[in-house]
Structure formats: structure tokens, C-alpha cells
């Protein structure tokens, strides 16, 4: 499977294994095609999780990670891609409807937008909140003081 896609896409895809877990590092531009191929051709029919990680020192600051599982093959893989701050990703909602809330959570926590998502808004934090808490430059004690004062009528949420 790895060989096949390497031939097809060349250097845009790298396959690695760490502690027995396989993952692909894929170029951002190949993501929509590659995810569709994984679902349709390789039977990865269940999207376990979608998440991200922030590396502020890198030029492309974010890693987006899809964890996929295939019921027929009983196999789990991860797909990883790097994107810059402000860049958006195509929504995987048409492929796996389960990514609906997962994408909203990534947007809420990291500020990565997904184009084509039916309802891209915050999920865990209130709608008017400013900032994305799981970015590394967001301190653990930081909060949207303005929101807290207006909506809760208290000086600070701490």
C-alpha cells in the first residue's frame, strides 16, 4: 500500500513506523485526495479522531493529525500534515460525518478552519470567546477577561 502511493505521489508522502504504529506524513496539497483514497480504496471507514498540535517555532506552525481505523482490515493508521497559521484545511465531514464535532473542537482550541464544514463555530468555549487555548502561546492562566467580566459579571474567572 505504501509503495503504491509513493509511486503515485512521489515525495509528497512519507510512511513511518514508531513503536509499531504506522503513520503517513503527507503534503498539505495532497490531503483531500489522500484521505478520500484511504476511505474508498483502502477501507478506512472509521475516523477515530482528528486533532492538532502546535509548534510555534516552526515555519508551518501546526500539525493536523487524523487517526483512522479500518474495520475490515483491523488496522489503525495516522495521517499527519503540516500547515501554517491562518491556513485552512478541507473538511473531512463528507468522508466521515464523525469529524463534525472534532473539526469544531480543533477550530475552537487551535484556530484552524476547515473549509466546507457545515457549521464552523466554537464547541466547548462560548461563542464570543477570544483566543485559542491549546496554542502554546496561550498561557494556562490566561482567559478572555473581557468576556468573563461582561458575561459573568465577575472580575476574573480564576
Amino acid at each position: 500500500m505504501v509503495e503504491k502511493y509513493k509511486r503515485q505521489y512521489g515525495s509528497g508522502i512519507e510512511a513511518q513506523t514508531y513503536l509499531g504504529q504506522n503513520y503517513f506524513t503527507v503534503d498539505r496539497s495532497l490531503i483531500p485526495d489522500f484521505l478520500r483514497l484511504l476511505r474508498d480504496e483502502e477501507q478506512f471507514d472509521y475516523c477515530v479522531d482528528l486533532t492538532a498540535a502546535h509548534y510555534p517555532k516552526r515555519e508551518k506552525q501546526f500539525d493536523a493529525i487524523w487517526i483512522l481505523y479500518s474495520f475490515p482490515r483491523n488496522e489503525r493508521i495516522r495521517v499527519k500534515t503540516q500547515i501554517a497559521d491562518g491556513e485552512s484545511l478541507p473538511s473531512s465531514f463528507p468522508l466521515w460525518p464523525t469529524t463534525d464535532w472534532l473539526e469544531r473542537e480543533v477550530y475552537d482550541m487551535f484556530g484552524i478552519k476547515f473549509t466546507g464544514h457545515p457549521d464552523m463555530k466554537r464547541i466547548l468555549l462560548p461563542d464570543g470567546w477570544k483566543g485559542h487555548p491549546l496554542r502554546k502561546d496561550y498561557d494556562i492562566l490566561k482567559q478572555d477577561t473581557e468576556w468573563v467580566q461582561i458575561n459573568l459579571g465577575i472580575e476574573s474567572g480564576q
Partner: protein
Amino acid sequence: MNDEKTLDPKMIASKPLDPKTIAERVPGTAGSSLTRPNAASSNLDLDAPDKPYLDSNELIINMGPQHPATHGVLRVILKLDGEKVLGTECVIGYLHRGIEKIAENRTYTMFNPYVDRMDYCAAVSNGLGYCEAVEKLMNVEAPPRAQYIRVILTELQRIASHQLWLGTHALDIGAMTPLFYTFRDREEILKIFEKYCGARLTTHAFRIGGCQYEIYPGFEKDVKNFLTFVAPKIDEYETLLTTNRIWLERTKNVGVISGKDAIALGVTGPVLRASGVKWDIRKAVPYANYSKFDFEIPVGSNGDTYDRYLVRMAEMRQSLRIVEQAINGIPEGPIMAKVPKVIKPPVGEIYHSIEAPKGELGFFIVSDGSTQPYRLRVRPPSFVNLQALDLMVRGALVADVVAVIGTFDIVLGEVDR
């Protein structure tokens, strides 16, 4: 008032749902009956222009966040036509504590008790998932004796979690007796936990690398007594409900979800199995030492609330089987693997998941080689399962929404983290 109210609830529930299926909108998912709200905007068209005159048919009401049947602080906005549900939208986050952010600011050891506070009805299972994920990242394995203790406590926790679910779910639907029965019997499990590690609910029973505590004298006797005590009690719950006419009317054909839709929506655990998909991580990707035990995966066929009830009842009996095999085979030996005092996993990423009572509980950890996780992501079963609520209650009655929320067995601590 509207005519729908006088109809038999079963008829409404079994009516075909919204014809706008996902198969029409999305190529490649043909055959799926997954219905979705209008994709272009919010589920409910809350901003739609007002009707010229008071429309007595459509009504938007709020259920929660203080509604007792939502099992915590879940808020569901319901769009109703009389008593019939046209659409729902979940508003969550009321219990958000930023567990993932806290993890980045704590060491691996310090974060261990925090995971108990996610799914507080099954704290032991959370602890097992987290400890195993970090162990995998460090490439160590807990010794066999610790594995056995872990399996026994985790399976007891599964029974306790299902008992709590049964009691509250039946209470939501209107049966009060099961609540007293199940809480009476769950108490015996909590007593074992208390004797083992001092805590009843948020136990922090396991440590990275094994277990902190040796089993106490009389542990085996206590567990064996519990096994003989609880087996007839599970039959007793069934005499109350399984053939009860009111229970059947309220659960059969309510909240139906097909196996295909369940997979597409990422639903796991008993909800997936009740839809006929025979998939359990304990068998599919065995962790701890589950491969040593003989047990079956109960599956349902209709994917309705009643089948999910039957699946969970059968799962409790299977858990008893596992505990019985494990308690008779605890090997001698150490209970802690050789792990350094300061836990510093090598640079790398790992995803590890376990079959928690609610479904697939996964931990994705990115390590940068320091004492703190660089990024820790929890894949919560309740959060992902709850997404299916909208599909399952469309066309049903308001009272069925309560039944369906109960049947998911959600814990808001885990939904919001």
C-alpha cells in the same frame, strides 16, 4: 394542540426519518440513511425570519443545562412540532476544565489523577487507558501480576458503570426501583475499591508501570463473594425490566441507528454493538492481558434502545466471567515494572485506546523528551457518541429524547473535559 400527540409513540419512531439523506448530498455514501440537518447553516435555522403570524406548530425549547434527565450539564435545543422532534442541537462545554491544557503543564505522574475526573463514573478505566498509553510511549510493560489486578478492577468498574447507567436510565424512563437495586449492589464494588486504594469514585488506582498497592489481605475472598452476590442480582434487574410492558413500549424502536450509520458517525461501545457490529477493542486490538481470558462480545440486531439495554446486561455477565477467570489466576511476582522515578519518555508520538464502558477511550500523546507531555489529546467516547443524538431522535417524541440521552450513557465530565 396537535394530532400527533395521540399517536402511538412506536409508530412515530418507526416512521422513516427526514428524506434528505447524506447519500444524496455526499457521493460515496450511498445506501446510508444518515440524515443531516440543512448543511448550509446551523441545524435549527434559529435566525430564520419570523413567521407573519404566531405559528402554533413549531416550537423551539431548551432542554437543560439544569435538566435532571441530561445527566449533568448538557443543553439540547429542540425544535418541535407539537411533541414531535424536528431537529436538535447540542450545546456543550459547561463542564470544560481544559484537561488537555492542564496535561501540558503537569508531569506525566502528576497528570495521572486528572484522568479520573473525566469519566468519573468509570475512573479506573480512564486510569488504565492513560497508564498504558504512557507505558507504551516509554516502551515498558506492567508485570503480569499488575496486569491481573488491573483487569479485575477495570472489569468491576465496567459493572459499576453499567449499574449506574441502568439505574439512572430506568429512572429517566419512569421506573424507580432499579435505581435502588443497582446502587445497592454498586456499593459492594465501591467497597472493594475503597479497601484497595482508599477512594471510591476517583480512585487513581494505577500508576505508570503497574500498580502502587499490593492487593489487601482478603481481596480475593471479597471479589469472589461479590461474584456470587451479584450474579443473581443481575437476573433480578432483568425480572424488573426485560419483559416489562412499559419498558418495552418506551424502548423498543426508539432511537434506532443502523450499523452503517454508527460507523460513519464514529459511535463505539455498546451503542455500536447493539447495532449489530461485533467490535470490541478487547478482542480487536487486545490490550492489558485480555487475550488470556475467555469471553464473548454480546451484539444486538435492531440498534434500538432496548437492544442497547440487552447488550449492556449481557456485558455485565461477561465482565463477571472475566473477573472470575482473573481472580483465580493472579500470578506471584512484582506489581511494578522498572520505571525511573522521573518519567521522561523518548521523543515520539503514540495513540493507545481501550474499551472503556462507554466506548473507545483513546490517548494520543506527543512527547518532546521532557517530563511533561508536549501535547496530550483524549479521544472521549461520550463526546463522539453524543453526535449521533440528532439522527436518533429525529421524528421521535420529546419523551424519547430523554430515553435516547440515557441510552448513550454519556458522562458530561468526559464530553466537556
